[in-house]
């Protein structure tokens, strides 16, 4: 049976924990708004780029000499996995769900006899994956605690990926990130970056696609568009991760605040019971003492 003093100490410590978690929740909520706005603002570009690329790809696909970024080499021996997580924790299962998804994919590829390389973006993912797949780590990159995510950062990652591809260090690249579905749900998503999967809207895109004129010419445009598309896809994933992270953190901190509240209630009840029991015990002692006289 803990003493009254112990209980008081515990109630106070849980109270200060609750203060911290509720403050973190507020901070996450305000950052979420900005991150979500940024993620939504970036969507039109990514969508239009995808549309343009699919029309272009329809023109070039199947022809010999199509750029490698688009069609690949036909090999799929070495896989590169780009896993995007947050830099910080305290966001529930946000980071570990990416870790789990990546681990499952890696295990599956290894079982198929493929070679796997991992590029971790974000500190948490790096720490998590390095523990399990130290030999497979091809490198890591971090946001460095910067407040906003710039396109230049995504470009840096994209350049690194395409440099590796040019050196023929991998055949297939897959991106794993948390898609921002809503504040309380982020969905771990896999997306193949290289070679580019054929566009989903096949039937409609083909007809008018053939009629486009190109200036200077298709090859040149495609050679510019493909690396740009890579950067845009990564940028988008980073923004969604950022928004999702604050969403997950907000939810996690909300839960923590509520749990702390429950705990305070339980401890307070316990405290009052103990206090009453002590008083009753003292009274009994006094009364029985008086009776004995």
């Amino acid at each position, binding site marked *: 049976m803990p003493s009254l003093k112990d209980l008081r100490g515990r109630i106070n410590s849980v109270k200060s924990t609750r203060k911290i978690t509720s403050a973190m929740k507020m901070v996450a909520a305000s950052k979420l708004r900005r991150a979500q706005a940024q993620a939504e603002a970036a969507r039109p*570009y990514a969508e*239009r780029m995808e549309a*343009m690329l699919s029309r272009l790809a329809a023109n070039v696909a199947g022809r010999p000499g199509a750029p490698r970024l688009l069609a690949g080499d036909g090999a799929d021996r070495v896989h590169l996995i780009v896993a995007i997580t947050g830099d910080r924790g305290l966001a529930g299962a946000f980071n570990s769900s990416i870790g789990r998804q990546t681990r499952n994919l890696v295990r599956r590829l290894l079982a198929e006899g493929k070679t796997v390389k991992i590029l971790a973006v974000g500190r948490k993912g790096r720490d998590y994956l390095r523990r399990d797949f130290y030999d497979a780590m091809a490198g890591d990159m971090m946001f460095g605690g910067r407040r906003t995510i710039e396109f230049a950062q995504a470009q840096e990652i994209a350049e690194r990926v395409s440099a590796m591809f040019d050196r023929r260090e991998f055949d297939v690249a897959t991106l794993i990130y948390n898609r921002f579905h809503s504040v309380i749900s982020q969905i771990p998503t896999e997306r193949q970056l290289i070679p580019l999967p054929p566009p989903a809207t096949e039937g409609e895109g083909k007809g008018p696609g053939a009629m486009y*004129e190109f*200036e*200077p010419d298709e090859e040149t445009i495609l050679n510019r*568009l493909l690396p740009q598309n890579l950067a*845009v896809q990564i940028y988008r994933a980073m923004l969604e991760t950022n928004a999702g992270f604050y969403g997950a953190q907000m939810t996690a901190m909300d839960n923590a605040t509520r749990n702390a509240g429950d705990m305070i209630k339980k401890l307070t009840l316990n405290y009052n019971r103990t206090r009453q029991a002590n008083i009753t015990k003292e009274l009994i002692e006094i009364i029985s003492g008086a009776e004995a006289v």
Partner: protein
Amino acid sequence: MPVTLEIVSPAKLLLSREVDMVVVPSAEGDLAAQENHAPMIVLLRGGVITVYDGGKAGDQFFVAGGFAEITGDRCTVLADQAVPVAELSRDAARARLDDAEKGWENADKQDIAVRDAALDRLLSAREEVRLAG
């Protein structure tokens, strides 16, 4: 019938409205898009997009390069970076020019792709500085 012009950069959608005509700085010379233009996909150099309404030049945007897709009733500009000309900052432009000049000096001139990319950046930065005044 006007053309629907959309200017998007990776960061945001800058403009989406109907205009009478728009002139985009294509890699091989300026190109005006009006209604019923033949469908084209063009590469952009660093330069100015000018919007025309009712025969008069209106809004101007600086783009640092990118792509434009033109069809009979639409013109979509995917800019690497786009800013209204009035909001260009002189210091930012200078900084970019310095970077581009350094990039040009260090570029491997034997590699055509690298050389062209560095040259495009340099020209685009020069244009930006000129516009920023």
